[in-house]
Each structure stands twice: as C-alpha cells, then as structure tokens.
C-alpha cells in the first residue's frame, strides 16, 4: 500500500541477481536497477505532490451531487473571498519586495562593503537559522516585542512617549504581518542571492572604475542587470513562501485577519464556507497564483539570459 516506504528495501533485494541471469540478464538487470531506484521517488511524487492538487482541481468543478459545475469558480467572486485573496497577495508582494531589497542590501554590505570577515560568517549562519524560524514561535516573538503589551511597545510609550498603536501600526493587520514575514524573507534572500553576488567579479567594478564610471553607474549598467534573474527568482520564491504561510497568521490573530490561507484553513477544519467545492476552488486559485508568479519569473529569466549573452 505504501510503495514509497517499502519499495526501496524490497526492490533493492530484488535487483541483485548476481549469480543468476548471465548474459541474458545483463541489460534488463541494469534497467531494472535503475527503474527500482527511481521508482519510489516518482511514485511518491505522484501520490503526494501531483495527484492531490489535481484531485482538488476536479473537486473544484464538481457540485455536491457530483455533477460538473462552474458554480464554485463563480463563487470565488464573492466579496469575502476576493478581499482575502487581495490581502494575501498584498502581504506576500510587500514582504517579498521589502525582503528582497533589504536582503540584497545586507548581502551587498556584507560581501562588498569591506566589513570584517567574521561578520559574513555570522550573517550566513544567522540567515540559515532565521529563514527556518517561522510559524508559531515567530508570531510569539513578535507578540512579545511589538504586541500591545510587547517590550518595545511599552518601552516606546513610557520612555519616548510614542504610542505605535495610536499612530496606525497594528501587529494584527497588514502592516504587522508584513513586518513579521520579513523576519524570514530577508534571511532567505541573503542565502539565495549571496552566490550571485559572489559571482560579480571584482575586475568588473575595477574595469568600470578605470573607464570613469561612478559606483551608481556600475550598479545600474552592470551589477543589477547581472543580478536581475536571480533577484526575480528570489522574488517569486519569497512571494510563494509568504502566500502559502498559515501558522504565523493563525497564531497571531486566530482567524480575525482575512487572508486566503486562513479562509481555506477554516473551510478544511470546519466547513466554514459550507461548500467543500468552494474550498477546492480556493486551493486551485492559490496554486494558479503561486504558479503564475513563477511563470513570470521564468519568462523574464529567459529574456534576461538572452540579453546577457
């Protein structure tokens, strides 16, 4: 029943007919070994990565009686869901953009800013940790810091007489969620963009300087165009990363902020929308949006690569 857990072992013992077969078994044996080596991966991928979304696609076009319908897709247009998608897209785009720009600057500072060597090691290690520090505990950390009773909130109010909640900030809305998501988006950018910045040869900036280029000219005509494909890839990855996030928002707000993952969570949990087909339609639309972000990246990257040649 669970080929992905059993087959590597049983398959492996089957592939080993060393003493038997002779010249007849030679070629097929090789093939069989390869097939049995790759098969568990393929079966796993089909069962747990490919089929589930496709099954939901089918569900999205099925009504409660099992007939084909477009009603679920039409229902995506109701205001609650449209606004949830819209807020999700805004938060994901904002945190991806801020994360990518800030991450780029930090990576540039660390790699090309002549900072002491230990800083790079520390930043790399910390980025590895912080990019994986997400979900529930991340929400807790920010509640402790800039929640209504957070240490920083109270410090600013008592010492500097600045009430951040009076001045429009709220951890439990768009601005707060974007601020929190940056905590893993920025380190992720640093990890993704560092190899590309290492690839910018020092000779290029020296050559540009010799030819009389100012630093900003080097960056606008050489640096950024070279980094561009990588930056875009990072952006689409960050977007998908934030777009699918559930736990942080859930821990932060229960379900009071209306983002699409929380809508879908409530639907799966307790049929909150009272229509499983609509849940499937939401899932379908989420995959479409995340995939769209990546398609844009692929198109721009192929164009950028052609231009770079």
């Amino acid at each position, binding site marked *: 029943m669970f080929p992905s857990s059993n087959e590597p072992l049983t398959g492996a013992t089957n*592939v080993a007919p060393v003493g038997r077969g002779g010249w007849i078994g030679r070629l097929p044996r090789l093939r069989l070994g390869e097939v049995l080596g790759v098969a568990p991966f393929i079966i796993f991928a089909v069962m747990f990565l490919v089929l589930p*979304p496709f*099954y939901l696609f089918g569900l999205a076009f099925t009504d409660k009686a099992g007939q084909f319908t477009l009603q679920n897709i039409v229902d995506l247009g109701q205001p609650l869901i449209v606004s949830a998608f819209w807020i999700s897209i805004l938060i994901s785009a904002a945190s991806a953009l801020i994360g990518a720009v800030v991450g780029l600057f930090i990576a540039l500072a660390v790699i090309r800013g002549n900072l002491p060597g230990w800083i790079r090691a520390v930043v790399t290690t910390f980025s590895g940790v912080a990019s*994986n520090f997400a979900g529930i505990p991340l*929400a*807790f950390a920010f*509640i402790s*810091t800039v929640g209504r009773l957070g240490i920083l909130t109270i410090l600013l109010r008592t010492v500097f007489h600045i009430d951040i909640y009076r001045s429009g900030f709220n951890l439990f809305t768009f601005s707060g969620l974007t601020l929190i998501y940056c905590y893993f988006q920025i380190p992720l950018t640093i990890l993704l963009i560092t190899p590309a910045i290492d690839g910018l040869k020092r000779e290029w900036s020296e050559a540009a300087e010799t030819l009389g280029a100012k630093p900003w000219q080097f960056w606008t005509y050489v640096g950024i165009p070279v980094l561009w494909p990588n930056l875009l890839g990072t952006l689409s990855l960050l977007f998908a990363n934030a777009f699918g996030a559930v736990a942080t928002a859930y821990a932060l707000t229960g379900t009071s902020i209306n983002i699409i993952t929380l809508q879908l969570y409530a639907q*799966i949990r307790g049929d909150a929308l009272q229509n499983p087909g609509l*849940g499937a339609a939401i899932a379908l639309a989420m995959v479409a949006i995340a995939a769209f972000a990546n398609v844009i990246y692929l198109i721009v990257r192929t164009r950028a690569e052609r231009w770079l040649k």
Partner: protein
Amino acid sequence: MRRGKPWAWLVFVLGALYFMLPLVATIQFALSIRRGTYSLDAFTNVLYDAHFQESFVYSFIIGLCAIVVGVLIVAPAAYFVRLRLPRLRPIIEFLTLLPLVIPAIVLVFGYIRLYNTSSFINLTGSALGTDILLTFAYVALALPYMYRAVDTGLRTIDVQTLTEAANILGANTPTILFKVIFPNIIVALLSGAFLTLAIVIGEFTIASLLNRPAFGVYMQNVGANRAYEPAALAIISFIFTWVAMGMIQLLARFAPKTAPS
C-alpha cells in the same frame, strides 16, 4: 586592513537591530513572568509540562521517520540520475521544486480528500495511518532541501569511479548504495536530515489539519491560553533551530571530497 565602508556598517547595524530586537525582547518577556523580578518560571513551566514533552517527542519521532523515508526515496533517485539517467534530471528537479510552489495547506487539503476513509487508500481512518500520512507530508515539505543536499553531496564525490570499482569487486546495487555511496555522502545526508528536522519540528498547519498531537499544535494551544509561556517556547524553538543549523555547518567541515578536480 579591512575597515569597512560606512554605508555597509550602517546597513549591517540596522539589519542587526531588526533581527536582534525581537529575540532580546522575547527573552526579556519570557523572564518577566513574575512582577518586578526576573525568573525562569516561564521556561520551567513549559519544560515540565507533560504535554510539552509528549508533543515534542511525537514531532521528533515523526521527523526521524520523515528523514529515513526521505533519504530512502531521494538518495537512490539522485544517485541513478547522476550515474545513468541524466535525461530524467529536469523532471526530478521540477518535482522537487513543487513543494515550494504548491502551498502546504493545499497539499494537506488534497491528502485529506484523497486518502480518507471512503477512498481506495485509507490513511486518515486510523491514528497509525494518519501518522504515516503526516510523515509523508513532511517528506514532501522537506523534499526540495533533502534533494539539494544529497545532490550536492553526490557532486563532491566521484560516483562513476566508486560505482565501477565496487562493481568490479562484485558488489550489487544495494551494496554499492548502502556501503559505498551513502557512507561517502553521509555529511550531505545528515545536513538534509537536520534541515528536515528544523522544518518539521514546529510545523503547525499539516499536523493540526490532520488532528495529530504535534509540537506546533501544542505551541499554538499555549499561545491561545498563556501570556508568558509562549515567549519561552519561542526561545526554545529558536535554540532548537540554531542547534540543527549549527550541526549542518559543523558537519560541512568533515565532508570528504573524492571528486576529480
């Protein structure tokens, strides 16, 4: 002598502030459970909580299972792709990238619909079945990282020569995999393992929708009911993540390199 450019220092210091402030504030918050004095009570409350221990052990075990399954699925595939089936590489790499594009909540929604009690493969019907489903879900979550770690490991050794040498000595494919290839990429395998653990240990969405008593679900529960203990949990999780990532860096120093250069 590297003195550092002023703008670089400015960017670094601002970045450090943004990343350090929440950590410092969370520690301070966790320590101030008693009015007017610092104490470790929030930490001891959490650590001695039976639910903490149970859920942590549960998630840890599921994580270990996900690592074993992940290695057994990914390593042979990566090995054969590198050795004999390079034409499959684009397909395999595309599949490993899917978890980065398809949100986890969509995947688990699909699992619940596809492997429920009325389906051909019933996994959600029993606790054991759901645990197995959760394990596979975590394998899927960690797949991009596990594949990349293993593939990088295979790149640093000379797969072709090792395989031929073992073949001449009469080893069959499983022997080659388990006694020659795996020991040589053990550092990469362990990196993938620690990364998997870091991703999986506090995972909330999938565990909660599958109704399993995982650590992430426990943390969410504490967050909804307590004031200071969540801060302690955040610090504990951060330390755990740090240890897992630190192990990867430590291991990287021992990586054997036999690839022809």
